[in-house]
């Protein structure tokens, strides 16, 4: 009598144990109506969550545009080039705060880029393997410290230090540049630049690390095989290949520096005036919003502040998009080697 059971040596044989396990899952279940419905519900729920992310950004743009409507209507684009910020007479011009934002961010970049490049090179190429995780964790802890604590430290440690020790030195040796004139009260553009530099160090360093690790090992080996020293190898094989990504990392740091609020508010002195000296107090887009929003003198004042927020949003979105593009063009398809 032929049975459906196959002998152990025939193809398609299924042992008793395996047959018992397969029988636990009723056949034909996967196509039933209830499952199709449940699949559709799950898929819609998940798509709704993803769409909500897009909706949130849309909402932000919408609210910024509506709330700044008054000011946009009255001043238009001239808002960006006028210099008077006078809440009493309802005259608002954003030029001093834009100047403050640009100068403090550029100063921060000037200080942070060489340091973070050096740190990234050190961590990925030079330091011994055992120390790598420790060092990269330390750099990351700089990113974990909240902005308000940077500000607290800035007020009580950095500002007195700059006022007592750095200002006379800078005025004496670098005063010829015209950047270090005038009285120094401590709360100044210089202090803001230094604190911002410390805050953007970890971002630039970590993305530079990722970009450096994406450079193929063959490039390094080829340079060494041609007789290059360590530094020449780093310069020619690594940095040259990674320069697009490093540029992207720097621009990302710039974006972060422009949006930073609390630490800057606490050390910059909050005076909306343009001055050529780094010792003078200043104001940035974010710091002016933080200071004046809750005490805004009227609807036009609030609207002007929201327009500052809109300008900040547009600029940081542009900067971040450019930076992501550069970083992506170097690291795509090349997962970072897990060294540390």
């Amino acid at each position: 009598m032929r049975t459906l059971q196959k002998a152990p040596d025939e193809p398609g044989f299924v042992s008793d144990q395996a047959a018992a396990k397969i029988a636990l899952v009723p056949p034909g279940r996967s196509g039933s109506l209830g499952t199709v419905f449940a699949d559709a519900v799950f898929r819609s729920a998940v798509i709704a969550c993803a769409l909500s992310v897009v909706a949130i950004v849309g909402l932000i743009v919408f609210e910024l545009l509506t709330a700044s409507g008054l000011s946009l209507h009255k001043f238009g684009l001239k808002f960006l080039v006028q210099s008077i910020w006078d809440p009493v007479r309802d005259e608002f011009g954003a030029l001093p705060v834009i100047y403050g934002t640009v100068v403090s961010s550029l100063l921060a970049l000037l200080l942070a880029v060489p340091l973070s490049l050096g740190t990234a090179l050190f961590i990925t190429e030079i330091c011994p393997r055992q120390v790598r995780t420790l060092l990269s964790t330390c750099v990351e802890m700089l990113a974990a410290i909240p902005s308000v604590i940077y500000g607290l430290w800035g007020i009580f440690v950095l500002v007195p230090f700059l006022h007592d020790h750095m200002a006379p030195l800078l005025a004496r040796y670098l005063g010829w540049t015209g950047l270090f004139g005038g009285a120094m009260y401590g709360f100044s553009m210089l202090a803001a630049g230094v604190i911002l530099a410390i805050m953007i160090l970890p971002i630039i360093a970590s993305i530079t690390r990722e970009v450096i690790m994406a450079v193929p090992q063959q490039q390094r080996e080829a340079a060494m095989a041609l007789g290059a020293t360590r530094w020449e190898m780093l310069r020619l094989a690594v940095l040259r290949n990674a320069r697009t990504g490093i540029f992207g990392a720097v621009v990302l740091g710039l974006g972060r520096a422009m949006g930073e609020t609390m630490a800057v508010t606490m050390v910059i002195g909050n005076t909306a005036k343009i001055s050529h000296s780094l010792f003078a107090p200043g104001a940035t887009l974010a710091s002016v919003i933080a200071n004046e929003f809750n005490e805004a003198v009227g609807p036009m004042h609030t609207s002007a502040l929201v327009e500052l927020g809109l300008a900040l949003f547009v600029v940081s979105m542009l900067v971040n998009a450019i930076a992501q593009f550069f970083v992506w063009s170097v690291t795509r398809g090349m997962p970072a080697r897990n060294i540390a």
Partner: protein
Amino acid sequence: MVNALAVGAVSLATLVVLTPLVMILGTVIIHGMAGVNWSFFTQIPKPVGEAGGGMANAIVGSAMILLVASAIGIPLGVGAGIFLAEYGRNFYGNIVRFTSDVLNGIPSIVIGITAYALVVLKQGHFSLLAGGIALGIMMVPTVCRTTEEVLLMVPQSIREAALGLGIPQWRTTLSVVVRTATAGIVTSIMLAFARVAGETAPLLFTSLNNSFWNWKLSEQTASMPMQIFVYSISAYDDWIQKAWTGAMVLIAMIIFTVILVRFVTNRGMLKGAR
């Protein structure tokens, strides 16, 4: 010789970078320890001039705001992450990915303005809810991107095996894939927490501050970063001392979280740090 100079310069750069970290942590701990006592953790602020008082309401307020933020940020973030990993390997997924990165880069004060316009203006007063919404919005991109990464690391063979056994698509994703990746998702939530726990700017115009206990969603609430800010720009030594101690408590919680996550998974707070 140039080589030796260059290597020396690079090592020096690293030392210079580590110095502020040591200085900041050291200053916060040294100044903060002086003010640690039982009343700091159990009492609400007292009027200036009276001894004692503390930040108890700020600690509890921060916890409540973070709870509201998590209620918004975690479901949306994990859901979007699941979408990107399972259904989003296409053009629409790229749009969501790009938008999430844009949201990540928006300065926190702009998100504060949005929450102000959305919630505070409509309600007519500052509230805990508005602060929670602002922080929740900030949590979404971190949770979303990290969840996507973690889900992508689950081997495709596990999905195929589950589907091959007849488990429906939705059940596969929830009970098999997400369950395998639970540790990673938990770490993404912890990282998002650590990031928003210290944010002050969004709270400036949403939940403001409060010198008393508050248990209602619709009232303004004290929070640790706001209290530290108000105290540190004040003119009273007692308040400044409390600011240092509050900073120490806040930093201890955040750094503990970051180190724990780093120790367990090698995943960092910055997207590029792996």
